[in-house]
């Protein structure tokens, strides 16, 4: 049962083959056994989980069950959840028990899904390796020497190691797609504004978007049906009619126009990742897709633009952590300013501090035009690149990252190299487009490699269709690490 998809679990629960309590217990046992080595979860609370599972079973007995009632789910520790510690991977919030729940948590709970726990992450979602967590690095279940990717590394590992059938993550510059790729799971970052940011601890407000991570595209579609939708508490949440993201899954890919951006297959892409992506493209071609070359000329500029905009927004978003109303406060201080400075120096890790400093600098007097405004103009150029490309194709395909997962510690002291590895994911966030990662094979060192699918705005159903058809034709998504 531990290897079942959401779809299968839903069927087993409906048929009475298993109860929600039994299911939750299986997963809790597995977490207990494997989490000490993997470090995928920050918080586990078996009693709470079982309480939710009992309620789900009761709802089912009362005939009030929906398709996902009783199905377990793990949340990245960035989504506030009432009564649960919501740390965001930071010492700053190590003692923070949220007094309210994020919109997506409310939605999942209302659907009857059972909370398995809260997954590890790079502190405040800043990182591509999950080494920046106050709670220690997360291990890649395929290779304990490898990073799992970040920032939603705990969620990716939970799904890959079957500690949870699915998990929620967030993606500001690739934080769902890159760990999904490195761990061999499926994840989708929806169009900006599709999933409410209410109750999701902010990193960079104009880029952050929550999304599902699961074994299959079909499961992602089912979860997206639950978490997507308008929320008046988020001013950037879009008012659109609800859609069924599973509606196009079964469509054949005949005539699908697939765009390959020249710049994604240029220098910097490792040979083995290029091969995996190429063979995935061949598979899609066999399924009836037509391949066209497109160009995203400003791809390289997404790195500087992102590393100005995201830190700028973050530097302001993280000012609220001041030791006054909640969270960490330094034990010793001489006056107010000293209290602020020590609290923040102690509460934040190195990467978070670096980004706050970069953001503070680019917004400071005399530099705004040269950095922030310039980056926003480049952001427009990048969005325009995609607009032009989508005139010629339905979806864009490419790698998620230049290489498979690198070793833990390999880039830990080299932020520039770490940032450069985000080159294929950042521009999607800058443009606000939906993007996903689908397991597509393995690198020479045996570590998983994902295929990135980028769609036009609001084309999640089409992307999931492509991914689902690919998964019907391949079994990369069903491979699992030996643990």
């Amino acid at each position: 049962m531990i290897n079942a998809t959401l779809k299968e679990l839903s069927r087993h629960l409906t048929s009475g083959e298993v109860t929600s309590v039994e299911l939750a217990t299986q997963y809790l046992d597995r977490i207990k056994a494997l989490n000490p080595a993997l470090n995928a979860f920050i918080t586990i609370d078996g009693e709470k989980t079982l309480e939710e599972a009992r309620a789900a079973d009761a709802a089912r007995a009362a005939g009030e069950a929906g398709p996902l009632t009783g199905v377990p789910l793990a949340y990245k520790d960035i989504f506030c959840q009432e009564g649960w510690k919501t740390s965001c991977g930071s010492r700053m919030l190590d003692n923070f028990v949220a007094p309210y729940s994020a919109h997506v948590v409310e939605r999942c709970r209302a659907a009857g899904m059972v909370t398995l726990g809260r997954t590890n992450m790079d502190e405040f979602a800043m990182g591509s390796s999950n080494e920046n967590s106050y709670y220690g690095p997360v291990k890649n279940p395929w290779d304990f020497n490898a990073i799992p990717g970040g920032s939603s590394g705990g969620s990716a590992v939970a799904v890959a190691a079957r500690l949870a059938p699915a998990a929620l993550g967030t993606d500001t510059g690739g934080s769902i797609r890159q760990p999904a790729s490195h761990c061999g799971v499926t994840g989708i970052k929806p169009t900006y504004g599709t999933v409410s940011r209410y109750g999701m601890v902010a990193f960079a407000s104009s880029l952050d978007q929550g999304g599902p991570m699961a074994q299959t595209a079909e499961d992602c579609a089912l979860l997206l049906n639950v978490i997507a939708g308008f929320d008046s508490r988020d001013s950037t949440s879009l008012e659109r009619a609800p859609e069924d993201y599973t509606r196009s899954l079964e469509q054949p890919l005949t005539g699908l126009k697939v765009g390959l951006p020249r710049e994604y297959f240029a220098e910097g892409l490792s040979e083995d990742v290029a091969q995996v992506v190429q063979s995935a493209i061949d598979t899609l071609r066999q399924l009836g897709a037509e391949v066209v070359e497109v160009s995203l000329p400003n791809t390289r500029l997404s790195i500087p633009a992102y590393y100005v905009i995201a830190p700028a927004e973050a530097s302001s978003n993280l000012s609220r952590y001041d030791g006054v109303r909640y969270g960490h406060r330094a034990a010793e201080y001489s006056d107010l300013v000293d209290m602020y400075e020590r609290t923040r120096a102690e509460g934040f890790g190195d990467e978070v501090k670096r980004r706050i400093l970069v953001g503070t600098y680019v917004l400071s007097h005399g530099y705004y035009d040269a950095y922030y405004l310039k980056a926003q103009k480049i952001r427009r150029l990048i969005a325009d690149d995609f607009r032009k490309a989508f005139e010629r194709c339905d979806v864009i395909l490419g790698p998620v990252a230049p290489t498979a997962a690198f070793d833990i510690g390999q880039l830990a002291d080299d932020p520039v190299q770490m940032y450069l590895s985000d080159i294929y994911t950042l521009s999607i966030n800058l443009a606000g487009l939906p993007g996903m990662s689908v397991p597509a094979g393995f690198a020479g060192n045996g570590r998983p490699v994902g295929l990135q699918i980028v769609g036009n705005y609001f084309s999640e159903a089409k992307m999931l269709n492509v991914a689902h058809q690919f998964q019907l034709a391949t079994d990369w998504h069903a491979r699992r690490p030996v643990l």
Partner: protein
Amino acid sequence: MSLTHQDVARIARLARIAVTEDEIAATSEKLNGIFGLIEEMQAVNTDGIEPMAHPQDVFLRLREDAVTEPNRREAFQSVAPQVEKGLFLVPKVIE
């Protein structure tokens, strides 16, 4: 461009993050690496390009003026470092 130690000390102060002399040196080096990357932007001509603040070109929704939030002081202050008589306490503020 290159950030001096004074620049780093100034922005750390603005950001209210305490940094030691040693940290300033190490941080300066890393920040200069990052700014080396960022400076690539300057080579691009962006004259006449409208800055993009947001992915969607839509306007703000406005809510009706109504009181909808109940008093949840007890729940909110249960996670506060220091409160007394309903107030959050901070080191003395001098105006």
